[in-house]
């Protein structure tokens, strides 16, 4: 019975998202809107990885934009310079991301968590430097064109691309829910609490940190590949600071350590700038202020509001003893 419940909680949300996502293109009229929805899916993939790493396991990487770009560049170079096929370039690029994450992770994850944050920020900047200055290999600041994806002579259209990325995003969410609701999730959450306590309970702290760091890097690389295919080009801006700002804003605004926080945050961060005309110049400030306000006043982000809302309705209906349900204590 319990396992049935777990399975339902794992699949119900993603199934609903898949259904809504599949209907979206029917409601949209312009290609621009379809592009926005595709970008939301890409950011969700990127930030789900970040959320698993920081929200659940309490390890922070500020180099996700580096892996985002690494995936995109590796994929593009393998496709165009290496003449690899799509189906071999995709896993190879993801393997490259995993390998680099392993190399960075092994020395850093034995240390306290701020070392990872500091060193990954360095990685992101070092990668941006290589991407913009190693001109003969990466195309410099202009970047490179990405060949359009073909399957047996048929060029994949924008809408088909959207459905593919939507499906990937839903699969990533299912995987996240699976990880979170099994023993793996509990091991990760024990790292967030107290590493020494986790170790004494038999959790191999370094190994779990390394696994989740690699997984989040691979997801960032996957999002980067999707972004390269959608934009039909890669350039150094993939690895630059604004991407990191977006990742952090999405994760914190959506809700750290919640299942659908990444999706919620991605919707807000992608759609909100469209409504504000004079957003351009002050975009950085607005992101920064949002980040700070949410950190201070709503550490559970927008997702934290939902159980609070439900809690209030339930409390009204059943009127239990005061103080039984606190929004912060509800398991995401």
């Amino acid at each position, binding site marked *: 019975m319990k396992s049935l419940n777990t399975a339902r909680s794992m699949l119900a949300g993603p199934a609903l998202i898949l259904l809504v996502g599949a209907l979206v293109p029917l409601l949209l009229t312009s290609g621009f809107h379809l592009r926005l929805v595709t970008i939301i899916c890409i950011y969700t993939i990127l930030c789900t990885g970040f959320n698993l790493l920081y929200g659940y396991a309490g390890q922070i990487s500020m180099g996700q934009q580096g892996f985002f770009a690494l995936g995109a560049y590796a994929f593009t170079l393998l496709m165009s310079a290496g003449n690899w096929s799509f189906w071999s370039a995709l896993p190879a690029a993801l393997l490259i991301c995993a390998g680099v994450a392993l190399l960075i992770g092994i020395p850093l994850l034995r240390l*306290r968590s701020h*070392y990872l*944050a500091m060193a990954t920020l*360095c990685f992101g900047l070092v990668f941006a*430097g290589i991407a913009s200055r190693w001109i003969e290999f990466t195309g410099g600041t202009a970047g490179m064109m990405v060949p359009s994806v073909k399957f047996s002579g048929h060029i994949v259209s924008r809408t088909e691309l959207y459905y593919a990325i939507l499906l990937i995003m839903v699969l990533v969410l299912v995987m996240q829910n699976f990880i979170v609701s099994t023993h793996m999730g509990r091991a990760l959450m024990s790292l967030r609490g107290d590493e020494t306590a986790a170790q004494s309970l038999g959790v191999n702290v370094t190994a779990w940190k390394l696994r989740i760091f690699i997984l989040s890097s691979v997801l960032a690389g996957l999002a980067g590949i999707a972004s390269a295919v959608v934009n039909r080009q890669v350039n150094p801006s993939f690895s630059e600071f604004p991407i990191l700002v977006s990742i952090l804003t999405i994760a914190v605004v959506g809700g750290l350590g919640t299942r659908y926080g990444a999706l919620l945050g991605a919707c807000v961060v992608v759609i909100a700038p469209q409504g504000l005309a004079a957003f351009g110049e002050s975009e*950085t400030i607005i992101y920064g202020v949002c980040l700070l306000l949410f*950190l201070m006043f709503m550490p559970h982000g927008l997702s934290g509001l939902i159980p609070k809302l439900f809690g209030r309705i339930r409390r009204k209906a059943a009127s239990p003893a005061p103080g039984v349900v606190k929004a912060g204590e509800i398991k995401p």
Partner: protein
Amino acid sequence: MEQIGVILLAGLTNGSVYGLVGLSISLIYGTNRVINFAQGEFVMLGVMSAILFMVTLHLPTWAAIGAILVVVVLAALVLELGVYQPLVRRGAAPLTIMIGTLAAAIIATGIALLIWGPLQLAVPNVFSLQALNLGPLMTNAQQLAIIGVFAGLLLLTWYLMYRTSFGLCIRATGVNPRIASLMGIRADRVVRFGFVFSALISGMVGILIGPLLGGQVGMGVTLTVKGFMAAILGGLGSPFAAAAGGVMIAVVEALVAGYGSSLYAEPIIFSLILAILFFRPYGLLGDFEAGRR
């Protein structure tokens, strides 16, 4: 032979800058175990307000320097009172506070972008940029001033930390703020001092490095990252180890740029840091600090 001298001098100049940023980061970390991701923004503010006070407002040099230092101290107080304190009061974890400082860095960059725009601006010099022959080496007063200020601030920090009773308070707070409070040390004031002192250092770095780097609102992150590299390589636990790390990084950078291409410098240094962490997890000169909560 001459070339290596030039390279080492360039390394020492940049190293003074990286070292001072690393020292600032390590100083704040030493009082409250928080990594300040906005440290480079203090340098940026120093550089950009130098443009404001010296070029736009035509203040005399000494008044401008005073005004710049006031600006960075105010920025440090805003960071401490507006970001650090509220997060600590809400019981945020050190990592959350760290993201808070990054948010502050983002806001600072955004405000600077509105004021000064995205272009690279020329920064007036305090000391002469006239070429100066020092034996076989060519240098200028500004470059020598940077190295001199580096040495002076190192000495000042050392004196403050190890020869005054306030320094003892700083070190005690770093070991355990609660017990330090029980001993009658005002731990919150020590933390505030850490922010203000490190901002002053960074502001001075900004005044000195501005004419050589040029002023651009995005320069803060690059400097923060150099400071991180310095602190990780040298050892986060001690300000002096971090400063030494900065010099090491800059010398390697200058050597790689001088004999190869500057393209390889950053990746080589980054791999070097990872390799060194593999064998010495707390940095080359670091002590036990890093492993402790």
